[in-house]
């Protein structure tokens, strides 16, 4: 198991592998782009085509003020849900349920936003809190099931994703549906003006600020508090945590609850800052992408933020890429999948670039246990 303290020994390695993984994924994606690209009189276009495609991607993501704002807006939910998955990972738990937690968070926030009549100063906090609460309940249920019955969180969170999706379908077509005669789709009414996140800049809501604050608070909790210490202890070695007097089951339940809270907040911020309502089929995929983001970010706060920017940029730039090159924007999903594959199967990257194994340096060779396969840092107990 690699040492985990970021402050103590920052190893180049920790940054190198994800960066090389991204570079490799872009290179492989380039080959696919080239192969999928248009033909000129039956023959393939040159390497310049791939360069142009990537330039248009970059331009689409960062090439103008509007593009930057758009990328930033997409980054925000990724940060919240990426932190959610990261926090659970630190506790040795694999929260696959960010998608469902985000969905119920959005539903609760929208409901609180349109149905309650509150002064503006408290309406927005109530909307956000409603999203957090719904997400926390959704994650907490998985936690309680794990604590009480030992049900594995991977299974329960996946199942809760389905339940969340069906619940949204029912509520948005039924009790929470916007009944105005003009509405023809499954969505809630718009939330009250006072429940909306104010703009920092034109088009850019204050959720960005909130994401930064939440990222810092999460970092502080995980790395500086006794609660975070217990969380990391449980994640790194649950047996040792129990031996040291930590209530492991309670800490795991807490971790899934807080993880759900963060994912729920992602949904609430989308409602309060971007959509102003909850619509069936909106905000799909953020929860699943966040698993990749947490992995790519190596379960560190700074890594999650950087990965969120990358994923947001890829998604934002994809439109321009498609417009310019006639290659489907789905190529971005391919590149994201390649990044994830290469990060998850880290050995491929190490082999490609002849990097030495992560553990050889710090591990004393003689202790019996080193011969055993170390548990993976993420899923160890999961």
């Amino acid at each position: 198991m690699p040492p985990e303290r970021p402050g103590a020994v920052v190893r180049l390695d920790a940054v190198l592998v994800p960066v090389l993984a991204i570079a490799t994924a872009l290179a492989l994606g380039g080959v696919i782009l080239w192969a999928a690209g248009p033909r000129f009189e039956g023959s393939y276009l040159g390497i310049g085509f791939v360069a142009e495609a990537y330039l248009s991607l970059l331009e689409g993501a960062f090439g103008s003020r509007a593009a930057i704002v758009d990328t930033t807006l997409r980054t925000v939910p990724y940060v919240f849900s990426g932190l959610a998955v990261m926090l659970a990972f630190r506790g040795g738990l694999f929260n696959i349920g960010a998608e469902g937690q985000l969905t119920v968070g959005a539903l609760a926030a929208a409901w609180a936003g349109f149905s309650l009549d509150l002064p503006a100063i408290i309406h927005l906090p109530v909307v956000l809190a409603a999203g957090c609460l719904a997400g926390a309940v959704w994650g907490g249920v998985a936690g309680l099931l794990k604590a009480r019955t030992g049900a594995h969180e991977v299974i329960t969170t996946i199942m809760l994703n389905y339940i969340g999706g069906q619940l949204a379908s029912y509520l948005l077509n039924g009790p929470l549906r916007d009944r105005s005669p003009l509405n023809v789709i499954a969505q809630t009414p718009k939330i009250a003006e006072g429940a909306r996140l104010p703009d920092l800049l034109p088009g850019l809501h204050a959720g960005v600020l909130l994401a930064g604050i939440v990222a810092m608070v999460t970092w502080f909790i995980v790395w500086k508090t006794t609660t975070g210490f217990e969380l990391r202890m449980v994640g790194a070695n649950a047996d040792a945590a129990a031996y040291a007097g930590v209530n492991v089951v309670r800490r795991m339940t807490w971790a899934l609850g807080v993880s759900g809270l963060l994912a729920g907040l992602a949904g609430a911020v989308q409602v309060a800052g971007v959509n102003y309502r909850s619509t069936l089929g909106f905000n799909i995929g953020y929860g699943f992408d966040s698993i990749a983001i947490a992995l790519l970010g190596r379960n560190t706060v700074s890594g999650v933020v950087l990965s969120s920017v990358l994923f947001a940029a890829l998604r934002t730039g994809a439109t321009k890429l498609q417009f310019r090159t006639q290659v489907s924007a789905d190529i971005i999903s391919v590149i994201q999948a390649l990044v994830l594959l290469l990060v998850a199967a880290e050995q491929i990257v190490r082999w490609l670039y002849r990097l030495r194994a992560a553990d050889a340096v710090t591990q004393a060779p003689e202790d019996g246990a080193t011969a055993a396969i170390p548990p993976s840092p993420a899923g160890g107990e999961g």
Partner: protein
Amino acid sequence: MSPIESHERTTTPNDLRQSARSAPIPSGTRGTGDPTFLLEARHLTKRYGPVIANRDVSFAVRPGEIVALLGENGAGKSTLMNVLYGMTVPDAGELAIDGKVVRLRSPRDALARGIGMVHQHFMLVPPFTVAENVALGNEPSRRGAIDIATVEARVASLASRFGIDVDPRAIVRDLSVGQQQRVEIVKALDRGARVLILDEPTAVLTPQEAEGLFRVLRGLAADGTAIVFISHKLGEVLSLAHRIVVMRRGAVVGEVLPEDATAESLAAMMVGREVMLRVDKSPSTPTEDRIVVRDLRVAGDHGGVAVDGVSFAVRAGEIVGIAGVQGNGQTELVEAISGLRPTAGGTLSLVGVEAHGLDVRARSMAGLAHVPEDRQRHGLVLPFSVADNLVLNRYHLPPLAQRGVRQARAIVAVARDLVARFDIRTPSPEVPVQALSGGNKQKVIIARELSHGLRALVAAQPTRGVDVGSIEFIHRSLVDARDAGAAVLVVSAELDELLSIADRILVMYRGRIVGEVPGSEATREGIGLFMAGGGGATQGSPPAGFAREDDVHYVN
């Protein structure tokens, strides 16, 4: 080469033994291949990052010779063994078999060339029969179906030839640990092993079982098999080996014949200085009861009864040892006392308080310290820093934390103090504890457990896998804790350890206490009999309603 060929040798083991005596192999210099050596390692060097695990190691073994490889943890024995068995490729140096240089890239290579290994943790499939385990990975088949009868015949013939008592049709799970070890040996022989490497083979055996193993090994050697026996137990090395190679800090530091060595001289070679093998301690002056166990019953992992009505008391100011072969309920007893495992009946009181309903933390706060049996699994969080591990059970208390926020400065201050007081060899308190040697890891645990408000201490296998120098220190610490007024309960599979530090020794067998001996009157033989379930009036047939044989308890 097949096992048949390998054993057709004209030289008698006695000749070989003579030649071994007359010519100890000088370590270091060796030029061209010497065909009298079956297996030879020349100038091996292996590094792991900054750590040099093997430094210019030369080592050789002749047919029919038993060579003991002696050294502390971290001395490089395991690395050398891994190189010999093809699990590790050395950075420099070479291996020769029958005088010819070979390259071993995997254990499969090693096996193909006649090198077999018996690991400390057996590589057996418990629900399979002996023959099935022997065949595994090398199954003879007839029209696509495994031909197990052939293997059974082979196993039976090997067993009778070497006087190994093993039934090819027995299910491995039902065998004692000693018998399972024989299966490993047969497995290696069946693959044509001419060199047998055994890694700490007696760690899991009773003294009597160890003697049985030695008889088998002597028989194999007499038949021409070369045996490399890795150990840190001085007594058995002296009684078994034809030649003893001592390693320290990655290098071979000496080679002696057993008749020229004593336990003290070997220990000094291993550690590089004189070592106190017996702990200097005054008679105990016990006072009030601190750990009182009455008719305690504890369930095992698989539903059986692991601890079956155990009663004893440990008083302040005494060290009580619990002897027994592993797997006789000691682990479960310790976990029940520390609060990690629920009890199924009986009472337990700690420091005068009924412990039922108190969780691990409450017991710890009441002054119960616990040195766990498995330090990698329970005692340490390997990727965490030495400092974090030193405060692993007190991280939530001031001054280490204030209002839920950890105080880095206070933590490091405590850690620095403990590192100095307990002589923990670490570059800094910030390095991950996994970078430390086994002995220093154990010192981290000892330092943490013994440094605060200690009233009762339960130490399970406190020196397992720990180097001789650290053993001395740990034993001293336990006696000091006793003298400072703590009640100390030591559970150990190492009889010598209990004989040297315990004031009273209880013997556990199949979940029960089957004997009690004052430390001053205890002998290896007497306790060994209890450990095997023999001797003593308290022992008889296994208690009625006892757990299924196959789950925890291995001894017959």
